[in-house]
């Protein structure tokens, strides 16, 4: 069964279907059903995945544009599989969470949900693409639905944020296009299939140039310091649901691209640029955390924490040890859930009070204990409290990096401490203390919102205690990736006890 095409097909047909439904409420229910069907199908596919089987499974390859050597080629390895799972789990949650988001702006509700499903199809496609050209097509095309979601349904500065988001990403993408074309020409294979292109570029100077073309696009997408400035704007202006998908999934395309394309296609260049990337990552970790502490706007704060977290992920990718690589991949998934939960619960809060500013809140805990409690859990996961999922991945990244790069790993642990400050301080200012006058009558989470939060909190807890199923899938894929970069894990000189947790 062509699993991956089916997944995308169901999403796209669902998107078309939503535009045909005349009634807004029906459209929402329809979207929810479609996204749940996609989730069910994905789970059905995932259980058939054999972690120690072929590298790429569920492969489908058809000629798309023979004149350019372009294929419609999709397949998943462990890394792609968990990211697709992340996407399809988040979509129904976002649908449920966005139930009333689109109504605020008096704009077409159906369009919003239709865009959401189009985006879902593209998110699946971008992770599943095994043809570099197809990957590029999804990479660029998925900007458009997100652009409209931010621009049409976002906050007051929405059109500025949407345009900034689009132009940054588009510019990066166009640089990547040049590299894609050059890769094709220089490889001279007449095909864009990823597996045929691996290892074709031997010349190190060429590798470096092509690496830069890909890397800048991914660094903008991820976003890595200093390419991050679009993210706080876009995430703060986007409706909460779109922000979750933006930060939780779309940005992962950047770090996923680094792991899949930058490392495997240009191994020598990747090694050459590793010190630079590690440096940028460490700066991003510390900078993002410090700036997050200074934010007065909750959504911007969460966006900056993500800049810090993406520093960890990029560091893990480029540390090139199995532990760090697997940790980074796991981090991509866990960050999606924890930041997703933070954005959504903050969104619920903002929807109630009508303000994004921390200063407008205080003592919410007393009037809305469930909201505050779940917010705390999500926050604690974000600051990597042991027992919650992000801890495992952050720990793996740090120990994995420490094996090879001691100083960056040590500096990065500062980010963990800063994380405690920005999360707990935000929690303290909004949820604790005397109840502010304006939030006295704030209702607690309603049933729909509880349904949104419950699966996320459950996932945070489950993967916090038992990340093995994910790691079983991720590990072989990461090992395989690193072996094609031909690096082996360094032997630990001394048994490492990581500090700072």
């Amino acid at each position, binding site marked *: 069964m062509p699993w991956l095409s089916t997944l995308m097909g169901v999403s796209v047909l669902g998107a078309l279907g939503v535009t045909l439904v005349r009634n807004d409420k029906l459209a929402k229910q329809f979207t929810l059903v479609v996204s749940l069907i996609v989730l069910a199908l994905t789970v059905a596919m995932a259980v058939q995945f054999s972690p120690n089987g072929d590298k790429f499974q569920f492969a489908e390859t058809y000629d798309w544009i023979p004149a350019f050597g372009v294929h419609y080629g999709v397949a998943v390895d462990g890394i792609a599989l968990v990211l697709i799972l992340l996407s399809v789990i988040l979509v129904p949650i976002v649908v449920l969470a966005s139930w009333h988001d689109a109504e605020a702006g008096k704009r077409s509700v159906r369009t919003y949900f239709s865009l959401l499903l189009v985006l879902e199809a593209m998110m699946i496609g971008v992770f599943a693409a095994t043809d570099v050209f197809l990957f590029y097509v999804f990479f660029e*095309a998925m900007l458009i639905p997100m652009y409209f979601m931010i621009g049409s349904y976002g906050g007051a500065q929405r059109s500025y944020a949407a*345009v900034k988001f689009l132009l940054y990403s588009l510019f990066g993408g166009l640089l990547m296009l*040049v590299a894609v074309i050059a890769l094709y020409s220089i490889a001279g294979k007449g095909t864009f299939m990823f597996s045929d292109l691996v290892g074709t570029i031997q010349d190190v100077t060429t590798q470096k140039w092509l690496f830069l073309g890909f890397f800048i696009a991914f660094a903008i997408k991820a976003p890595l310091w200093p390419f991050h400035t679009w993210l706080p704007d876009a995430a703060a202006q986007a409706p909460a649901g779109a922000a979750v998908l933006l930060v939780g999934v779309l940005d992962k395309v950047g770090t996923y691209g680094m792991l899949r394309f930058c490392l495997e296609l240009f191994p020598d260049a990747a090694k050459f640029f590793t010190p630079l990337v590690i440096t940028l990552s460490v700066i991003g970790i510390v900078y993002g955390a410090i700036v997050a502490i200074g934010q007065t706007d909750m959504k911007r704060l969460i966006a900056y924490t993500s800049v810090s977290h993406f520093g960890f992920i990029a560091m893990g990718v480029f540390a090139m040890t199995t532990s760090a690589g697997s940790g980074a991949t796991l981090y991509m998934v866990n960050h999606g859930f924890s930041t997703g939960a933070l954005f959504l619960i903050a969104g619920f809060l903002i929807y109630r009070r009508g303000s994004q500013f921390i200063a407008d809140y205080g003592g919410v805990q007393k009037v809305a204990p469930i909201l505050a409690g779940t917010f705390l859990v999500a926050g604690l996961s974000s600051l990597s409290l042991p027992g919650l999922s992000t801890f495992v991945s952050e720990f793996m990244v740090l120990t994995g990096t420490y094996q090879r790069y001691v100083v960056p790993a040590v500096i990065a642990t500062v980010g963990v401490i800063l994380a405690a400050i920005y999360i707990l301080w935000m929690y303290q200012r909004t949820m604790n203390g005397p109840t502010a006058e304006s939030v006295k009558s704030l209702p607690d989470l309603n049933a729909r919102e509880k349904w949104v939060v419950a699966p996320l909190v459950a996932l945070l807890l489950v993967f916090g205690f038992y990340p093995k199923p994910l790691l079983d899938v991720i590990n072989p894929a990461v090992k395989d990736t690193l072996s094609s970069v031909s690096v082996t894990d360094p032997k630990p000189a001394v048994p490492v006890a990581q500090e700072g947790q």
Partner: protein
Amino acid sequence: MNGTIQAPSIEYALLAPVLVVFGAAIVGVLVEAFAPRYLRSAIHLPLTLLSLAGAFALAVWQAVKGVPTKPAAMGAVAVDGPALFIWGTILILAFVSVLLIKDEEHFVGSAAAVPGSAEEEQSLVERAAHTEVYPLLLFAVGGMLLFPAANDLLVAFVALEVMSLPLYLLCGLARRRRLLSQEAAVKYFLLGAFSSAFFLYGTALIYGYAGSVDLAKINQALGSVGGQDTLLYIGAAMLGVGLLFKIGAAPFQSWKPDVYQGSPTPITALMASGTLVAAFGALLRVFWVGLGGLDWDWRPVLYGVAILTMVVGAVLAITQTDIKRMLAYSSIAHGGFLLIGVIATGHTQAENTSALSGLLFYLVAYGFTTVGAFAIVTMVRDAGGEAWHLSRWAGLGKRSPLLAGTFAFFLLAFAGIPLTSGFFGKYAIFQAAVANGATPLVIIGVVASAVAAFFYVRVIVLMFFSDPAADGPSVVLPSRGTAAVVGIAALATVVLGVYPQPVLDLAHTAAQSLFVR
């Protein structure tokens, strides 16, 4: 010299598409002369459409029957693969533009009446109409067909004039903003005449160098004639000026915004698509066939022109507030992208074929999207005609989502977003350029694309993210013709963006043998 002049042998069958169009144009003139006024429109429209369709059918038949390997009409006209492909493209685009013209709201009743005068009132009352539009258009299309097929410089010059003169007239016939329209016509005429003079003078100098105006013979002379280099270089430069003017490459672009703005929108659509296609065809033929041996000399110049054109088009478009002027600058920028394809020649035939087929594909993709975009411009109206000021388009996405959505789609295609035709057009050209070592040019090209994306996106922002003005423009219910044009253009933009292979194959086949010599 004892008195016998050989009658030239003309392959009428090969030239049939051109002859059909010219023939219909002449019949159109006779209709103007003899048919009663109330009947004219009813005769012109089917005549024009049928002749264009017939010419298209003939061109297809030629292509199916087998492309000739030798120039026709004593070497004056080359009906080869690229020429047939370009003919097909121009004929379809012209057909589509005629559907727009059918809606006669766009043309002035009496062009000779001074704007604002009593005569103008009179003509409005009488419901006067310039039905000459149709034969004029056919002459222009005939010129467009001949221009890219012209295998010697004199025929090219004649074709250039046949194409341009009717367009000068058509530019001045706008019903609204008549002064702007007349200004456009005069500007276009003066500058166009000037550039034609350049072309003709260049022809004369080249003749002085090579002793022939035949492109193949000029190319032969490049290797053998010595000591006349001044004539050659000045001549080649002047030919270049004439041709680059027609495609609106910088620094010869200044007419484009004015003319596009002032002309009746259907005519703008025809110029932006058909004329551009024809001019690129001619440019390719002159530079690749006639001056192919001189490429070491013209390539750096075109390199600079391409960069300048992309940058000027993309940057100046940002400051525009008139939708048609913005599309004009966008057309300039696209001219720059297309020039990359002209430069992207290599050492082998395969490399040249890939550059040429990329260019042909780009022309088709861009032509359709352009006609569609201008068709939409005709539909958004204010009290005083089309709502030309960009601010008037604010909030259109709310008022008529379908129209605004389609326009946004065309703009995304211009910007080259994947899954639209514009993406594959750009991709094809960039790929050929990278393969032939013009990577720096491609990098400038993508930066220009990013800048260009900004102003396309700005219009989308206006339409979708801004609130509509209280007295915003109304969207007229499109006539069947206009609706068909938008539909065809949108369909072409989607299909070429999702499944471009058939057209790429067609372009590749057409480009396979390159130009005949």
